Every structure is written in structure tokens, then in C-alpha cells.
């Protein structure tokens, strides 16, 4: 239906707005996230599991625990970690999707039905001639 293709938001806009929202969430809203232990941590604590927990191999990393080393301001520390992480995930996941994608420019179902349409065209053409 032409009206749908004419008036719809371009993919580029949807994706960019989505990324902007994600960056806002990771960069700003994350500061306000609940600091309580999550479900697993809480239950683990209650059942004495925390004793088994080993120190993380990357615990000394510059952004361990979403705190940026060398940045004193709590908000900026978390926000920066959030933004850096989001962009890294975007590049890696986006890059992976880009590499894996099919290049024929259509969903596999429509590619099949396009083939079928061509086949039936060829058949009717040979009937006529």
C-alpha cells in the first residue's frame, strides 16, 4: 500500500532515536537506578552462597562495576560507563549483524515468493507462445 511507504518513518530515524534513548538511559537515568541487590544476589545472600563468590578477574578494570576510575563525580562516573558500554555494544552487535545479514535485500520468505512469481510467469509465458 503506497500510503504506508510514503508516510512511514525512515529506518534511520527509528534506529537513531532508539540509540539516543538508550544512551539517555545508560548515561543519565542509570544514576537513579536502585542500589538494592538484585534477585539473585539477595537470595544468594540469604542462603549463604555469597561465601562461594570469587573475586572477579576484571575487578581492577577502569570501569569495573560501572564506575569510571579517576572520575570523582558519581553521576559522571556511572553515566560515562553507561555510554561507553552502550556504544561498544552498538558497534560490536551492530557490526556482527551487518556481517551476518543477507545481501539480497529481501526477507527469505519474500525471496522465495519472488522466485515462485518468476516461475509462474515463465510458465504462463511458455503457455502463450
Amino acid at each position, binding site marked *: *500500500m503506497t500510503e504506508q511507504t510514503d508516510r*512511514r518513518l525512515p*529506518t534511520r530515524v*527509528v534506529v537513531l532515536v*532508539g*540509540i539516543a534513548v*538508550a*544512551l539517555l*538511559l*545508560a548515561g543519565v537515568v*542509570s544514576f537513579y*537506578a*536502585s542500589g*538494592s*541487590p*538484585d*534477585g*539473585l544476589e*539477595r*537470595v*544468594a545472600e*540469604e*542462603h549463604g*552462597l555469597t561465601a*562461594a*563468590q570469587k*573475586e*572477579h*578477574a*576484571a*575487578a581492577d*578494570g577502569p*570501569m569495573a*562495576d*560501572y564506575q569510571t576510575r579517576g572520575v570523582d563525580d558519581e553521576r559522571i562516573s556511572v553515566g560515562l*560507563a*553507561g555510554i*561507553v*558500554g*552502550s556504544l*561498544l*555494544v*552498538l*558497534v*560490536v*552487535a*551492530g*557490526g*556482527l*549483524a*551487518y556481517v*551476518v*545479514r*543477507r*545481501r*539480497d*535485500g529481501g*526477507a*527469505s*520468505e519474500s525471496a522465495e515468493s519472488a522466485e515462485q512469481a518468476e516461475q509462474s510467469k515463465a510458465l504462463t509465458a511458455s503457455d502463450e507462445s
Partner: protein
Amino acid sequence: MHVPDGFLDAPTSVATGVVAAAGIGLALRGARRELDERTAPMAGLAATFVFAAQMLNFPVGAGTSGHLIGGALVAVLVGPATAVLCMAVVFLVQALLFADGGVTALGTNILVMGLVTVLVGWGVFRLLQLVLPRKLGSVAPAAAVAAVLSVPASALSFVALYAVGGAVSIPLGEFALAMGGVHVLIGLGEAAITALVVGSVLAVRPDLVYGARRVLDRRKLEIRDVEEVRS
């Protein structure tokens, strides 16, 4: 629900790593069927959104919080195979850069929060699509139900792993009940966020929602029929 190092013993951790790797291998092949020029950007976006949303813990009761896992959401947006890849990237970055989720527990986290949520989420979603009316309006609610079930499923899959190779001996019935219970609550949050995000994309570009293809394909057939009748 990021599992730290040391909760599961070494053999179990290695086993989850093997399963996770196998899952990723299968996902790489399946993702090719799901992704094309038009939809590939959505995968990057979905993964980024999940990473950001996982930072936003919300309270679910006295002194406990939860966060979106996102497996069901991403599966509905970009397809299950692509979803597995997106989730795996998120967990990888979290473990290596932010020490969120153990490095030796990476396989466990990918399995429990990536594979299980995507499989359960997508499975429930597809089952619901079979019984619900074939309209766009059914997609977000189906995704929400899929999401709410995927979270306790994920939690209980960890309990099952713990039963096999947990480091510290604990009463498993209680553990299952506690984990299942709190993660049902967290699942409600997951459902709300999933419905909101899926609904938003459906409102502007339903063709970019993998889970809506079934509805949109039927629409194309109906339009074709009408055009043939007219001509």
C-alpha cells in the same frame, strides 16, 4: 541476575560454556535468515537498548531489585537467532569491561539469561500468536506474556544448574521457591518494558518488528486479493 564466578563448580561452568558456544553457533546460522539490509540496524539497536536497560535496576520489594533481561523483547524485535547473538554481545561486554557477571560464569550467564529467555520467550510468543487474532494489536500483549514467563524460567534454569554443580550445598526447594518468586515479580517489570518498547516500534514501523511478520504477510495477501477482484 548476573551470576558471579564461584557459584557453580568448574565442570558445570565449562559445560554451560560449551552449550552457550553451541547456541551461538546455531544462532549465527539462523540470524542470516532473519537479518537483511533493512533489519540489521535493529539488531544493533536492540542490543544497545538491552545493555542500557540492564543498568536500570528497579525495586521489587523490601531491599531487592531487578532489571530487564531482554531476551523475549529482542527475540520479538529481531528474531530468536539474532536475539541470542545480541544477548551474548551484551553479556560479553558486561563481563569483560564492567566485571558484571563472572568471566568464568560467562557461559552460564549467556545460557541462563540469553538462551533460556530467548527460547522460552519466543516459544511462548509463537504459541500465543497461534491462538490470538492475527492483528498487530496482538503482538505487544503476546510479547508481554512471553516476557513475564521468560524471567522465572531463566531463574529456575539457574537453580537447575545449581542443583547439578552448585558450590555450596543449600536446600534446593527453598532456593527454587525464593528465586522463582522474586523473578516472577521482576518478570512483571520485564513485561511492562517489553510491551512498551514493542508497542512503540509497532506504532511507527511494524515492518521492523520480526514478530509482526506473520500479521503483515497476511495483510499483503489480503491486499493482493482485493486488487485482483478490482482488476
